[in-house]
């Protein structure tokens, strides 16, 4: 994360413990920069994660995500 901040580019992050793996964020991401982990979180969901590049900081995934604390998007 600090890398993105240092690079001064937008990024999104998923709290893997709060994500319920509904994949709605994937469905709305215009750049397809979100993927689903093969690992299970402690609530037995496959959480989403940021693939690491090309996030535009549009925030659509944030509003598509039903969980208040699961997604955070930063647009410098």
């Amino acid at each position, binding site marked *: 994360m600090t890398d993105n901040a240092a690079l001064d580019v937008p990024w999104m992050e998923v709290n893997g413990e709060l994500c319920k793996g509904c994949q709605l964020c994937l469905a*709305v991401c215009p750049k397809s920069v979100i993927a689903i982990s093969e690992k299970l979180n402690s609530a037995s969901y496959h959480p989403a994660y940021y693939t690491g590049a090309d996030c535009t900081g549009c925030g659509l995934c944030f*509003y*598509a995500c*039903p969980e208040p604390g699961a997604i955070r998007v*930063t*647009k410098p």
Partner: protein
Amino acid sequence: MKTYEKSAGFFPVFERKTGPAKEATHYCPGCGHGNVHKMIAEALEEFGLIGRSVFVSPVGCSVFGYYYFNCGNFQAAHGRAPAVATAVKRTNPDSIVISYQGDGDLAAIGTAETIHAANRGENICVFFVNNAIYGMTGGQMAPTTMIGQRSTTTPQGRLETVHGNPIRMAEMLATLPAPTYIERVAIGDSKHIMKARKAIRKALKIQAEGKGYSFVEIVSACPTGWKMDPVHARDWLLEDMLKVFPLGVFKDESDSRDENSWHRRYDAYEPAVVDEYLDRLKSTLGEAEPVALENDLHCKFAGFGGQGILTLGLLLSQIGMRAGQHVSWFPAYGPEMRGGTANCSVNLCGSRIGTPLVENPNVLVVMNQPSLDAFADQVTDGGVIIVDTTIVEGRPDAKRLRPVLIPATAIADEVGMAKIANVVVLGALVAATGCFPRAFCEDTLRAAIKKRSLVDMNIDAFGRGYDFVKNAR
């Protein structure tokens, strides 16, 4: 820098939530409630409304709204959130009140509360999450369930002829004049979601500006109830649900209404103000020295409706009150009154009154024949029975009773108004029983008769009744 993150409109940790996961909601994966919650919380924070907001949770999946929203919270009975929200808003018009409801709560069990809060134009926001199913209770048919949709109570699918049609609340409420803003939005694709966000913000703004009632219906997925994965649920919503529940603004008068035009007054309790007000309710008969009452009077007055029977009782009662006596007045009430006959019981006593019902009067006034027939036998031996001989043909038993036969209606007619026969009778009663001095009664009448122009006529009528009895002796 712009950051999209969990709003301060939410509690940082959901301490009220049961179980270990205190930072995640209790909602199922892909449930639209979370999206709507986020939009509300964000708006409350950005508009600076958190501190004075009251979130009313319904019964349904969002029953636990109070786990999440970092403001004052109510939990309401099923369907009653708009009634609770109404009262909250009315007793603090500066609060920001949200009635958050699902389809079963809002459009089935709470239909009446929904319609009437809207019809009163309560200055609140109703956020209606329509996901076409009862989620919390186990996937039963909702009022918004689609034709053909299977649920645990429509196992073969909803049939129009059996279960009725999905109900369109936004359209229905938009027929009412009072609501300010009614829109249907969806948690569907990104465009829909951002429109939903806009609508929620707009509704809260309308309330904060005192412009009245807003209703935002949010078509939303219930993947668990629909037995679909979240992405398929979203697609079904987009392809099927929106055909039945078209999106759009059904009413918007937010621009044409003035700020605070729907802000209602509420004053907190001030004992001094109440005291001043209550003082105006007190008797205007004026103070008088107590007047002794030799014998307790237990009176029954009976006649036709319109003869002033009840008023006769009230006038005697007021004389009694001013004299410092114990007084009770009880009317026959309800349909018997409307049936054209009237009667009332009046007790005037020097000490505490027992039964307010007069079974065996020592004073009976009859102003029609049926009353004579019905009540004469009940009068105690030696009791006074006053008969308006203009109207009543029969005569009471003069051996057992003390009849006062007076053409009260005819006398009243001479005085100028047949309708004040009751006051003629009052004069006769006072003379016959000697209960209170004439002047005292007349003074009381002057104060008791509201219409100033009628005072003299009433005093005249009273005097004629009084003299009639005195002269007859």
